């Protein structure tokens, strides 16, 4: 029934000491105010480095910085690469990837406006 295309998130993989995953942002209005708060708070709860890269950008941004994330203007449909290095890196990647997949745990009300 549901034949809607959705880019499957790749499983977290280890490359060059980084734990890395790639996922498409499917949340209603991309990574805006509330989703950015939720994302960076979760990222900051891990002791490892967390970095993100959007679409074809060549720059890795600090995934714990809401200023950088808002500045990256992440829209719905953007492909987000997340990588982490250090203590609990794999755990951080799994948690952040799951958060994006759950559309940042936003209910409809916030999803429409935040």
């Amino acid at each position: 029934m549901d034949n809607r295309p959705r880019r499957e998130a790749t499983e977290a993989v280890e490359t060059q000491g980084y734990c890395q995953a790639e996922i498409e942002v499917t949340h209603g209005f991309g990574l805006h105010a509330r989703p950015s708060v939720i994302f960076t708070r979760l990222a900051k709860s891990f002791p490892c480095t967390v970095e993100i890269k959007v679409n074809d950008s060549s720059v890795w941004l600090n995934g714990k910085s809401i200023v950088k994330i808002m500045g990256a203007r992440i829209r719905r449909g953007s492909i987000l690469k997340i990588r982490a290095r250090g203590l609990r890196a794999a755990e951080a990647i799994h948690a952040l990837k799951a958060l994006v997949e759950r559309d940042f745990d936003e209910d409809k009300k916030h999803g429409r406006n935040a």
Partner: protein
Amino acid sequence: MAETLEIFGISASPGVGVGPVHLAAEFTAEAPAPGDTVAAEGDKLRRAVTTAVAELEALAYRSDEESAGILDFQIEMLLDPALVEMAEERMLAGDGAALAWFGALDDYIAGIEAAPDEQLGARAVDIVDIRNRVLSALTGRPLEDFAPGSVFVGKDLEPSLFLAHDWTTGGGIVLFEGSVSSHVAMLARSRSVPMLVATGRFEIAPGARVLVDGNDGRAVIAPDDEHVREAKSRKPAARPTASRAGGAIETADGVAIRLSAIINDPLELRAVDPASFAGIGLMRTEFLVTSPADAVDEEKHYDIYRHALDWAGESPAIVRMLDLGGDKTLPGARRSESFMGLRGIRLLLARPKLARAQARALLRAAVHGNLGVLLPMVTVPDELEAMRAIFEEESTALGRRGVQTRMPEIGMMVEVPVAGLMLDRFSRSDFFSFGTNDLAQYLAAAARDDQSVAALYDAATPAVLRVIAQGVAFAEAMKKPIGICGEMASDPRHIPALMAAGLRHFSVAPNRLADIRTIIGGMCSDGRAAAEMK
């Protein structure tokens, strides 16, 4: 006695309010305070940020959950050292704390404002809010509040200012710019504060009385008692146009207008109700292409087109063929082609493998609904003919293999000035759609992604309208449908002029539908506001 003046805008929150104007002062940085060392200025800034955070926390503490969520975002931004670091770079170059902060934040705000996504652009005023609060802590200048019961008039209104204000005695908000998607608009709706956005700048005398009619999308400066009584007696539910479904709307003088959806990504279809639209006016296919393999993945294309046709039901679904080049990089190519080089249909004809894979998917999907195909960046009739030939050849080849196909209607984007001016020569096109974003930048020879020439790009508007009016006349003479799918059609400020130019079919961004519907329902087919007719 002051003269009564009506101002039109978009309603961001319904209701009627009346009160004396509070004209917002524009916040500016003070002249650089000389003297202190970079380290001392940095400390000053960090202390101001701490003060601002404490103020916002106190405000959040006494706010409801929704408001606290908005302030939480601001607090989180201020707690991020990145903002202070951006200011510190400017301090090293000699700016004092206040000027450095103001400059760094302004650059950042300009980046957010320029976001192609309205929802994200509407967050810019939150950052303005942060900028002003820290600046006020730095300079000791108080943040402006205004007398309860006033009507706030300004470029935009910051959320924390809204939250700190006492709205219990009425008043309202009229914004020259602003957005229906902003946090303040959300707050105004939940508090029933009447609010109007996008009125454009207007002059108003200090202390003048203003009526905000959020039901009707207008403000009246120096209204007489009759105005106020009449506005208050009308209920918002009386608007007959607000709930009409199906993507059809009538103007006040009874002319039917079609509203179709612009779909940038098939995932959007999930969130959009097909009953609200007359089908899909433009579905972009560039999102399909993230690798060279994707570009020629016929099955992937086919699945997406079928999904779009299922969504649209009996209404048309118009798919635009790959519009690569310019700002959209061709997969596998090292860098993007020039805006005026090999892009759109030029690129498709130069790389027929791309065009043929997409044509096959379109031909197969067309069996399942009312499919239209739009060709991007057509300049001369030969290009249209060449693409038609590709469709016919692929159709024959598929038929030989026993695959069922149907020839879709094939139309063209009107975005190259040459084609727009010579539209009568394109009689082989089944329909036309104005792509005003490109048309404007080509007419003005000003790139739309270059801030330094943004004013020129805007200045192209009258010329765009002239090309549209002429094109509409040609299309009518050829008895061909013509519509618009550029950003202008999603911008309420341009709707009157587009109606006056003769357009009757608009493709709009789904989140702008309600606004556009309201605007069109309140005007006559010649673009004049219905209220002016009386």
